[in-house]
Structure formats: structure tokens, C-alpha cells
């Protein structure tokens, strides 16, 4: 077994890890659909998107680790659970297809809005990553929105499942837009926007899709998830065990 790496987590590194881990963990969840898609074409679509997200994660994690002499593989596979900074939303089990496309809508809308603003980051490499990723995120958002409307406005069964998925997912939305010192530092240095800065646009875009789908978001609750601070659900450990197994068992293994 390979020991975990220790990573210095200053605010800029945490900001990059939040983005990179969001892509990495959602990519891992979408990859789970490989061979299980409802139809062949969607199987390919979901794994295409998983690969887009893994590509974005590679660029972001390489960038985040470069200053400390750590590479993308070490960051992706050799961190302890508490050192992953993704919001809880993306680590939840993949659920059914309605759950997956709704989460994709939420995550892709967030990422698209962030990438748009990150194109003017004072960090030139991050700006370049954003310029490439924003096109991918736009497609992910459109693909997810299309399915959310089809299922929400579809049969009685698909509408029931869609409403159930929304009830589950909506609890994890407030965390996305909670401001903290990491976001404040990024906004102050010009590294990137506070995630809270895109909340109004996110609500408008996601709200329009849900309305077209005939879906009602549940009323908000006081519950706050804490993935961005490294405190995850019990699902994260299982995900990491699967994801990290090869690199832990065969250190430095490559294709």
C-alpha cells in the first residue's frame, strides 16, 4: 500500500481543489454508468462527459500540485478523504437516470458559470483551462437540461422519479453557494469568483429548466452539507476505495 500524500492547503490551493475535485468526483460517478446506460447512445454520452470531466480534473490537479512537486495522479489517488474539497452534491451515489441528469444539470450549470468568469482569472493557466472547459460544460448543461425536461414532463413514472430526485438533491444546493475565506481570498486576488457570485445566474438557469419540466423545488431547510471543507458523507469513502485501489495497490502504475 502507498501512503497518503500530505498537501499544503493554502486558500488558492483549496480553491483549485474545489474545482478539480468537483470534476474528478462527478467524473468518477458518471463513469459508473459505463455499460449501464438506459440506451446505448446515452451510455456513450454519459461516459463522454465523464471523460471531459476527468480531463478538466487532470489539468486542475496538475496545476494545484505543481508548486509542491506533486502530480495529478498523486493528487487524484493518494489523498485522504478529508483532503478532497468537492461539494457533497457530486459524491452522492449515481441513483437512477433521473437523479443523474438532474445532478448533471446542477453541476454543469455551476461549472459553466464559473468557467465563464475564470477565463479572466489573473492565473493565466487557470484562465486557459477555463477557456477549453467552458465549451464542454455548455454541452453538459444542454444535454442534462434536455433530459430533465423530457423526464419531468414525461410519463407519470418519469415525473414521479424526477420529483423524488429533486427532493433528494435540493438539500445539497445551499453548500454550493456558501461564501468563506477561500472564496473571499480568490475574489480579492483575482484568482476567480466566489461561488456565491454565480448563485443568481444559477438559480435563473436551473429554475427555468425545472419550470419547463413541471418540477417544484422543495422548500429550503437548515441542513448544510460540508464537502467543500473536507467533511464528506459515508458515500465518499466507498467511492475513494474504488477509485484509489489500483494506485494504492500498484504504486506508480500507469497505462
Amino acid at each position, binding site marked *: 500500500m502507498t501512503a497518503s500524500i500530505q498537501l499544503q492547503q493554502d486558500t488558492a490551493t483549496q480553491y483549485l481543489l474545489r474545482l478539480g475535485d468537483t470534476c474528478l468526483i462527478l467524473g468518477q460517478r458518471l463513469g459508473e454508468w459505463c455499460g449501464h446506460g438506459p440506451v446505448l*447512445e446515452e451510455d456513450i454520452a454519459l461516459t463522454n462527459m465523464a471523460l471531459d470531466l476527468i480531463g478538466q480534473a487532470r489539468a486542475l490537479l496538475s496545476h494545484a500540485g505543481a508548486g509542491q512537486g506533486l502530480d495529478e495522479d498523486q493528487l487524484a489517488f493518494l489523498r485522504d478523504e478529508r483532503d478532497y474539497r468537492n461539494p457533497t452534491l457530486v459524491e452522492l451515489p449515481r441513483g437512477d437516470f433521473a437523479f443523474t441528469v438532474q445532478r448533471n444539470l446542477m453541476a454543469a450549470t455551476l461549472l459553466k458559470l464559473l468557467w465563464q468568469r475564470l477565463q479572466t482569472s489573473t492565473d493565466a493557466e487557470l484562465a486557459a483551462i477555463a477557456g477549453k472547459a467552458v465549451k464542454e460544460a455548455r454541452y453538459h448543461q444542454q444535454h442534462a437540461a434536455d433530459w430533465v425536461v423530457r423526464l419531468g414532463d414525461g410519463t407519470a413514472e418519469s415525473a414521479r422519479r424526477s420529483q423524488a430526485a429533486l427532493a433528494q438533491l435540493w438539500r445539497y444546493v445551499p453548500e454550493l453557494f456558501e461564501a468563506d475565506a477561500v472564496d473571499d481570498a480568490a475574489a480579492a486576488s483575482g484568482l476567480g469568483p466566489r461561488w456565491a457570485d454565480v448563485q443568481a445566474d444559477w438559480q435563473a438557469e436551473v429554475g427555468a429548466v425545472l419550470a419547463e419540466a413541471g418540477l417544484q423545488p422543495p422548500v429550503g431547510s437548515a441542513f448544510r452539507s460540508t464537502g467543500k471543507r473536507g467533511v464528506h458523507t459515508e458515500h465518499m469513502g466507498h467511492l475513494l476505495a474504488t477509485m484509489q485501489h489500483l494506485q494504492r495497490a500498484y504504486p506508480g502504475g500507469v497505462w
Partner: protein
Amino acid sequence: MTNPDTRTEWPLWEVFVRSRAGLDHKHCGSLHAADAAMAIQMARDVYTRRQEGCSLWVVPSAQITASDPGDKDMYFDPAEDKVYRHPTFYKLPSEVDHM
């Protein structure tokens, strides 16, 4: 058309892709989709993920009328000995591209 109540599969669509360098859309395969918008989206994911194209067409397969394979001899063989129909006896000016 099949009665929608007994139909268990989405309708079939033929997919045409125009490559980056190409001038025309070429048939590249088919897929099942509920409607045209879904067919375009799926065609993007299934047929253009290796940089194959820059434009897509989809056409309902049911809308294509094909010649009868049984008519092949009657339709196509008579053209075999009409070599004079090929425009290879003309010399094109160099300004004329893409012929």
C-alpha cells in the same frame, strides 16, 4: 407506420456527418431516438467524438425511399458500357475547384 401503442422502440434515424475538410454530409450510421432534437444530440455523442465532423444531419429512416434490390440489374447494369457519359474527356480550367 407502426401503431404507437404497440411500438416498443424509439424510431430509427439515419445520421449524416460533414467532416471538417469535407463539403458534403456523408451517411455514417443510424441510431434510435424519440425525436429529432434527441437524435441530433445522440449523433453528436455517438458519431463525432473522435473529431469526425463539424455539422450533423439526421433524417427519419422511415422517410427514405430506397430502390428495390431486385431492380438492380435493370437499373444499374445498362450504364456499364456508356463510358462516354463520364466527363473525363473535358479539360477543366484550373480555376474550377471541387469537381
